[in-house]
């Protein structure tokens, strides 16, 4: 029987290792990339990084083995322009690649421009974005469904800021209140690890006739006294497209069953997206 099995395996599945063929692929042009967040009306935080080879690593763990200067622009000259004002960006807490500009002494217009010059590579990028007015969350509450054992429904209500045009939004819902640190403490760069992101959702008001926009989200049920924070930003269409591409990529884009996605960009001579939006937040407590 063993011999039979052996013969079957030989006959059926004997394959020498396939003679692999190397492939030369022209690498993408090295450019800077930009991302941003407007912190209320106090200022803007941007990150400026560098693109690098696809062969440098396929995961963050592998990428981190590269020198930081190969990944981020740590000696960039950042300038913002708005409403005739020129504001210089400064390094943010010595974190490589992160820059902050304080707008509290300036009156901003409708748009914000940025230009970045990297003295190491001598590359320059620029971008322009519309400063989107913030939109408040009217209310946020749980919807109780008795028969549901595992899931809760959270409903979010907001007022359409302008029914004469299409508006785009992004909402993040976190569990626990430590997220507030990012807003209240300028030393805090990223959300604390115990602030679990429950929902990340982009949506528009297309097809909604009334001024009231209602969004429902299903989240995993937690024991009583659950605290959730919804953070809403009113964003421009280009950034909405960027976030949509990001979501598609997360859902498997570039994998074996999905087409790859090149993220859209409004950065001239660069990658990423420069967007200025004012996030607002509201807390919901489930008792």
């Amino acid at each position: 029987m063993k011999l039979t099995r052996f013969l079957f395996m030989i006959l059926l599945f004997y394959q020498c290792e396939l003679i692999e063929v190397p492939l030369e692929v022209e690498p993408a042009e090295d450019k800077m990339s930009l991302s941003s967040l407007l912190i209320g009306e106090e200022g803007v935080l941007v990150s400026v990084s560098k693109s690098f080879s696809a062969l440098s690593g396929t995961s963050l763990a592998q990428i981190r083995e590269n020198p930081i200067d190969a990944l981020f622009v740590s000696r960039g000259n950042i300038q913002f322009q708005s409403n005739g004002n020129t504001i210089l960006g400064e390094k943010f807490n010595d974190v490589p690649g992160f820059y902050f500009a304080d707008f509290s002494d300036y009156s901003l217009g409708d748009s914000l421009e940025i230009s970045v010059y990297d003295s190491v590579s001598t590359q320059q990028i620029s971008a322009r974005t519309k400063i989107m007015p913030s939109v408040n969350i009217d209310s946020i509450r749980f919807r109780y469904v008795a028969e549901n054992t595992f899931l809760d429904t959270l409903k979010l209500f907001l007022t359409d800021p302008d029914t004469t045009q299409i508006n785009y939004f992004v909402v993040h819902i976190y569990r626990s209140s430590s997220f507030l640190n990012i807003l209240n403490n300028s030393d805090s760069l990223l959300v604390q690890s115990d602030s679990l992101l429950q929902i990340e959702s982009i949506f528009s008001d297309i097809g909604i006739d009334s001024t009231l926009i209602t969004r429902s989200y299903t989240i995993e049920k937690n024991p009583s006294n659950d605290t959730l924070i919804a953070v809403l930003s009113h964003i421009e269409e280009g950034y909405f497209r960027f976030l949509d591409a990001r979501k598609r990529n997360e859902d498997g884009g570039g994998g074996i069953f999905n087409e790859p996605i090149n993220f859209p960009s409004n950065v001239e001579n660069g990658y990423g997206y420069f967007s200025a939006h004012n996030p607002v937040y509201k807390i919901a407590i489930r008792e």
Partner: protein
Amino acid sequence: MKFKPIFFLLFLSPLPSWAQFSVSGYIYDAKDKESLPSATIQDTTSKNGVSSNSYGFFSINVNAEIVILRFSYVGYESKILRVDARSNELLEIVLEEKITEMEDVIVSAERSEVKDEVQSTQMSSIRFKPVELKRIPSFAGESDILKIAQLMPGITQGNEGSTGMYVRGGTDDQNLILLDEAVVYNVGHLLGFFSVFNSDALKDIELMKGAFPAKYGGRLSSVMDIRMNEGSMERWNVKGGIGLLTSRFTIDGPIINNKMSFMLAARRTYIDKVLQLAGSNLPYYFYDINGKMNYKLSKRDRIYLSAYLGSDVLYANGESETDEGIDSFGLGFDLGNLTTSLRWNHVYESGKLFSNVSFHQTNFNYSIFGNTSDNSLTIESTIQDYGFKADWEWFPITNHRVYFGLGLVKHQFQPNVLNTSGEINEFIASKAGPQLQSDEYHFHTSHEWDLGSLIKLNYGVRFSGAFVNTHYYGLEPRFSARYSLSSNHSLKIGFSTMRQYMHRVSSGSFALPTDLWYPVTGNVKPQTANQLSLGYFGASPKSIYSWSIEVFSKTMNDLIDYREGASLIFNDNFEKELLTGSGKSEGIEFFVRKHEGIISGWLSYTLAKTDRYFPELNKGNRFPDRFDRRHNFSAVAMIELAPNIITSFTWVYMSGTKITAQTGQYLMPNPSLTGIDLVPIYSSKNGVTLAPSHRLDINLIIKGRARAWGQGEWSFSIYNFYNAASPFRVSIGQNGNALAYQQHGLFGFIPSISYNFNFSSK
């Protein structure tokens, strides 16, 4: 737009008025009384000739009362008969099979048939017989008509090992595949690595890539018309094969001698059993069952009932340990086709009019399921077609043949029906899924007109439409012509417009069981294609060699593609992911065949370019199609080493497919500020060409002696003899100490053995 019958009558002019006689009848194989399609019938005096149709029926107009007719067919002894044309009797001609050392040759090879191909108006067409295909090396020893078709000019293989056909720049869902007039939607088993067609059950296959006759439509790029064996009217035949992965068994014979016959063929793979023997566990198998009944109601009437049932089945079950103890689970899928067709052939009293009326039904469905002791989930999708077709062939006078007909198909689609029970229902609610319906219809008419020794025309029109939540319709003109340079050389031109009222939604690179067909909608218009082809066709004086050079240009409109990153699996709102655009394909095809001799076979080379334009893709720039393989070369040779030993070789070379490869990346904080994203940068769409594929397959057949019970033969084949990788995708992986782009092939050196047998009652 109203269909005006007067338009049809115009086809009849000009018609000369001298008296003529008509000789008509059927032509059969002498042993089994199987009809012989595309047999040649020639008036030896006037040299006029006709071919029998796909049911073996012929009608030839002659000027004399007594004529000498010559009947011939590939592999059969020709017959010459003196016929009284005044008699209105339907002839029944039987031809004896030719006994030769090399009993099979490839692809339509009797000398008169070669000449017929050169002199007919039909171009861009290939006809082959499955019984001959078994000589060609095959994947895992399983003869496959779709993989054979990929060795023909103008037909590009998709991914390695798959049955996908990309014909003259079209996509795989632009091929109309008919099995005894019923449409087959899913033509692949095991993710498309095997076709659903058991070659033992098939009699005749015609593949058209252009210059489509008006009776065919519904797809843009090709029509593959497959006919099953009818079953012997006189004796019982049994044949089959036992291989390492599959086995086949076919039986046919008379139910009532010379009146009614049947054919039944079955095939099953036992990958599951073999793997079990080898200590692995993959509870997967597929099977096919083909059946046909053939009833001669009268001399002028025949009824055919055909059916095909095939399925891919995977069912795994077991037990797992949970916190609460042991829990049982099961998961798997079941997907398959069921097609049936009922046809009635009638020859009208004059012998000049033949009709074929058919009712056909196709059901394609899949079911994917998973269950534990407390929960279950099932996803089901179904396509159901009910159709009716009526076609007439009219032979009014010499040198004129008129075709006309109509058809109606009701398509019902029910995709992604989801049923859940247990706790999982809270997370995934059951839903019925959308129910879609499309009623598709057509009328067609065409006229074949032999103007003399130099020029022959075939022109016609098809009018088609579909009712969905709107009504789409359009004209599809068809035209082809032949200019005869000599009896062995001709120039041909062909033009056709095609319309397609449904499309297949596929996720990316692979055909999946979850790929679904959808009809056009108010937002998704029918796809259309216009194709022009020109060709030169020739044969050597004794027709041992034949050759052709064809150039083609095809433009396609309202093509479907998907937004970047589109998620199509189980997505009922996939319409939002669809984009429309256009495509263009141009190329030149060379084909040389040797039909007879100790060495026979063919060489095929295609040089073609195919691209697409979708405003929302690739920043609005044109981009190459994924299967835009610039060069495509095939060489097939069969060599008779001894009367009972035949070896064959296939060598293929194809330029690499096109992919969108990752060319860079960058870091940026994610919008939720919970981490850093690694964002990929890709090349332009399909901007990277993979390495060319090339492969050598070898086959050796050793025939046993003819014995009392019948005859057997051993077949040994090797797929990918020198183990070259045919890249189908790229990933980034470790190569020594560094990362590198890796091109992945699928199949290496695969040997196989099978034993085939056949016997017949006397």
